[in-house]
Every structure is written in structure tokens, then in C-alpha cells.
């Protein structure tokens, strides 16, 4: 849990437009709080400006004759609403930052935290296999 990662962490906000249920005042307050949260992190050099995603898009899958369907990932009830790259070195720090996200005061909200890798997962998989072979 306390391993460090010099590549940083990616926060993925997972939502299903729960904020539509909020009153005008609640929404206004939450927006200001979220803005302050991100602003503080950026000012402290702990996050880079994030990306908010529109609630539209497409998904491509299949081989040579790839299929395109409209909209965000179809099976996802908790579609990705935005991303934030954190320049922190440990998972604990990333978790602490996520826990301070104002959106979480509403139960419908969740944040996924993923360590950023310095190599393609395929390369990592190959390396693991080679190590296995070497020690076998």
C-alpha cells in the first residue's frame, strides 16, 4: 500500500449525473468547493489541470471491421466524468487527496485512483514472464 510511484496517480471521477438532483444553491456551493479543491492542488504543484468530459462520445470495438456505437461506454452506469493527474509519490497521498474531494459529500459519487505506469502493461507482462522463466 505504501509503495511509491514517481509517475504519479490518475483520479477518475465516476458519476451518473447525480448532481442533477441537487438544488441550485447546493450545486453552486459544490462547484465553488470543487474549484477551490482543484485550484489548491494545482497551486501546490500536486495536480495538473484536469480534464472534464462531455456526456457524449463513442465506443469503438472489434477487429478489422470495427464497430462504433454512440455515447460513453455502454455498460458503464458510472461513466467517467473527468480526470485529474496527481504529481504525488505515494498511494496514501493520492487517497488523502481523493477523500478531500467535495463531491464525495454526496453518496452517489466515487473516485477511482490508479497509479500511472512508466511502461506499457504488455511490456510489464513480458518482463514478468521472462523473470519467471529465468528463475524456473
Amino acid at each position, binding site marked *: 500500500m505504501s509503495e511509491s*510511484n514517481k*509517475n504519479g496517480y*490518475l483520479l*477518475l471521477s*465516476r458519476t451518473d*449525473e447525480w*448532481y*442533477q438532483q441537487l438544488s*441550485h444553491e447546493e*450545486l*453552486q456551493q*459544490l*462547484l465553488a468547493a470543487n474549484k477551490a479543491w482543484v485550484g489548491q492542488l494545482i497551486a501546490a504543484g500536486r495536480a495538473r489541470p484536469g480534464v*472534464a*468530459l*462531455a456526456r*457524449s*462520445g*463513442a*465506443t*469503438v*470495438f*472489434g*477487429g*478489422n471491421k470495427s464497430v*462504433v456505437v*454512440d455515447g*460513453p*461506454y455502454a*455498460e*458503464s452506469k*458510472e461513466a*467517467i*466524468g*473527468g*480526470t485529474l*493527474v496527481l504529481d504525488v509519490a505515494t498511494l496514501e497521498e493520492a*487517497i488523502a487527496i*481523493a*477523500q478531500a*474531494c467535495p463531491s*464525495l*459529500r454526496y*453518496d*452517489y*459519487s*466515487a*473516485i*477511482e*485512483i*490508479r497509479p*500511472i*505506469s512508466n511502461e*506499457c*502493461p*504488455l*511490456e510489464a*507482462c*513480458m518482463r514478468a*514472464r521472462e523473470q519467471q522463466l529465468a528463475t524456473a
Partner: protein
Amino acid sequence: MSTPNNNGYLIIFRSAEWYKGLSPEQMQQVADNWMAWFNRLKDEGKCAGGNPLEREGKIVSGANRVVSDGPFAESKETIGGYFLLTVNTLEEAVSIAKDCPGLPYGVRVEVRPIAPQCPMVDELASKEHLAHA
């Protein structure tokens, strides 16, 4: 589908650990193709960056800030990485997504327009509009 978007697109790679069934040679080939694709897009000025993600992770949820293990998974598919595309239309972004070397192996590529601002701001604006109607 053809609305231009000056903020670019995020393409997100979703998959189970599809590559575990490949031979070392196949795996090397797909990894090389993926890297070449990424570098070509960067050289062409169509990609501002991207990151692979580790398979593990945590989820923090709800008012109690509960921390649980693992990435979000739908049908065992998790997000493996993403590219930030600087193209202006969904068509261009989708056409780039179609070149993803993982597609023949079951990778799904989600293409999402980047919003100029948090969608909550739009929601707020529409509520204000209603209030003044």
C-alpha cells in the same frame, strides 16, 4: 456526430487482461505497434500525451470516504490507459481509435469529447435559465 470541439478528445482503452493469452512474439509485436501508433500521432500533432495505468488501484466513495480495493471493472474490463487527442471532430477521433492495435484482441476504445468546463456548470446554467423563464 460531426460537431467540432476545440478542446480535443480523450480516448480510453478498456480491456480485461487480453494480452495474457498471446505468445511473447505476438505481445512484443502489439506493444511495438501501439508505441509506433502513439509516436506517429504525436509527430502528426494529433496527440498531446497519454499514460498507461497499473492494473491495481483504489476506489474512494460516498460521504464516508470509504476506501476499497481495485479499479472499477465492468465485465472484468478496466481502464488500461488513455491518449489525449488534439483533433477537432468526433469523426477524426473515432477514425484514430479504429487504428488501435488492441482492437483485434478485444480492447474497446471509448472516445469522449473534452468539455470546456465541468458539466455541473452547464447544469447550473440551465437551472438558472429555468429560474428566470
